[in-house]
């Protein structure tokens, strides 16, 4: 029987090792899997490459992972924010490498990894600093930049509900990068507010089919994760 529900967030991230590339869902804090990140910090993996739209906000989630100096490199579109002080400090002292990617290219490169596309031509960024050194091509009179997939060893994402097959639905604009990261990582781990029965999600409305998800940990809203009776997967 398939059962992707794991008992704790700690168990969910237990095999994330040093040097791993980890995608982290979220746009700012909407959709950020903070409890999975907390578990990753506790786990202690170092020298990580992180893929996220931002570079941490305030003193939660990804910002704390940065503060703990576990991140060697970050691939993102919008690091500088009013509350990105942990990233800012590391960046100014050269303690973190930044690969800055226009947001739509970031999304499409992640999507390409999940969909088995080898590379693609995008108009975004053509002629700018962020396309320097990249191959270009004119197609039907329009200029494009060649971009390659971004893959990851793990994806940590947050969804609203999930079932034992790994099917997920999201909540409002917290959906953002979750579905595409789920498909781009070798091992996708989701925290959900609520684990539901297999028949409870509408098959017409499932956003992430379970094939893309390896583990689900339940983290009820506003409550720190506790041990669950579900079996490991």
């Amino acid at each position, binding site marked *: 029987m398939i059962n992707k529900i794991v008992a704790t967030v700690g168990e969910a991230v237990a095999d994330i090792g040093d040097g791993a590339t980890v995608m982290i869902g979220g746009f700012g804090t*909407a959709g950020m899997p903070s409890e999975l990140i907390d578990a990753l910090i506790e786990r202690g993996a170092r020298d990580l490459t992180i893929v996220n739209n931002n570079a941490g906000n305030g003193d939660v989630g990804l910002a704390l992972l940065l503060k703990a100096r576990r991140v060697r490199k970050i691939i993102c579109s919008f690091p500088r924010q009013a509350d990105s002080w942990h990233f800012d400090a590391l960046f100014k002292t050269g303690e973190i490498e930044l690969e800055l990617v226009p947001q739509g290219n970031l999304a499409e490169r*992640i999507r390409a990894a999940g969909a088995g596309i080898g590379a693609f031509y995008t108009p975004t960024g053509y002629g700018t600093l962020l396309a320097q050194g990249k191959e270009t091509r004119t197609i039907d009179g329009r200029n494009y930049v060649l971009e390659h997939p971004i893959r990851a060893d793990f994806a940590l994402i947050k969804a609203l509900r999930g079932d034992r097959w790994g099917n997920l639905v999201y909540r*409002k604009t917290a959906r953002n990068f979750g579905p595409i990261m789920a498909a781009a990582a070798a091992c996708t781990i989701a925290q959900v507010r609520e684990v539901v029965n297999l028949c409870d999600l509408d098959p017409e409305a499932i956003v992430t089919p379970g094939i893309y998800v390896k583990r689900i940990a339940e983290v009820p809203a506003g409550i720190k994760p506790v041990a669950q009776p579900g079996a490991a997967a």
Partner: protein
Amino acid sequence: MSRYTRDQMAARVARDIPDGAYVNLGIGLPTLVANHLPRDREIILHTENGLLGMGPAPEPGSEDADLINAGKQPVTALAGASFFHHADSFGMMRGGHLDYCVLGGFQVSVGGDLANWHTGTKDAIPAVGGAMDLAIGAKHVYVMMDHLTKKGESKIVAQCTYPLTGIGCVARIFTDLAVLDVTPAGLTVVEIVDGLPFDELVRMTGVPLHRAPGAQAAAD
């Protein structure tokens, strides 16, 4: 000479957006445009983080951390709204489905190049977000910005000196002094603030400007 206030600028942009248009308002100044969209037009707002049919800010106390705009401010969703993931959202932009986007700007060149993401200074932390996607991702790209920098230099330039966001992408510029169209023949002044002579605008701008046949100009 007067200047358009920020709200006047936003109202002026809003006037150019027709009924039924799909529109993305960039972070910062363009966000103001939402407050000035005419009530008798149904205009559908897109936000890059995965929402079409964005509504106004919620009542205080009913903010939802999962329902935000590109600037990470709380918003609402109208009846008819839809949520989608980031690849779908940027496909919507890159695919040219939005009718208008309104962006802030550091500089716009005579040829319609836009610089709005990076000042290029050494110690600045760069952040691009969706700016480059928006620059190429709407049928009409509008830029809203002050005409001059705080030092009094024109933000409308022969060539951008800041790093580019997009090339030849801007259709119309709304400043606190004028409204200008980017045309194959150069910049054309469509409107000018009351009391500012056209020649004075040209002098302040520092690049050649044409005057549109029907351009409003009060006192020159």
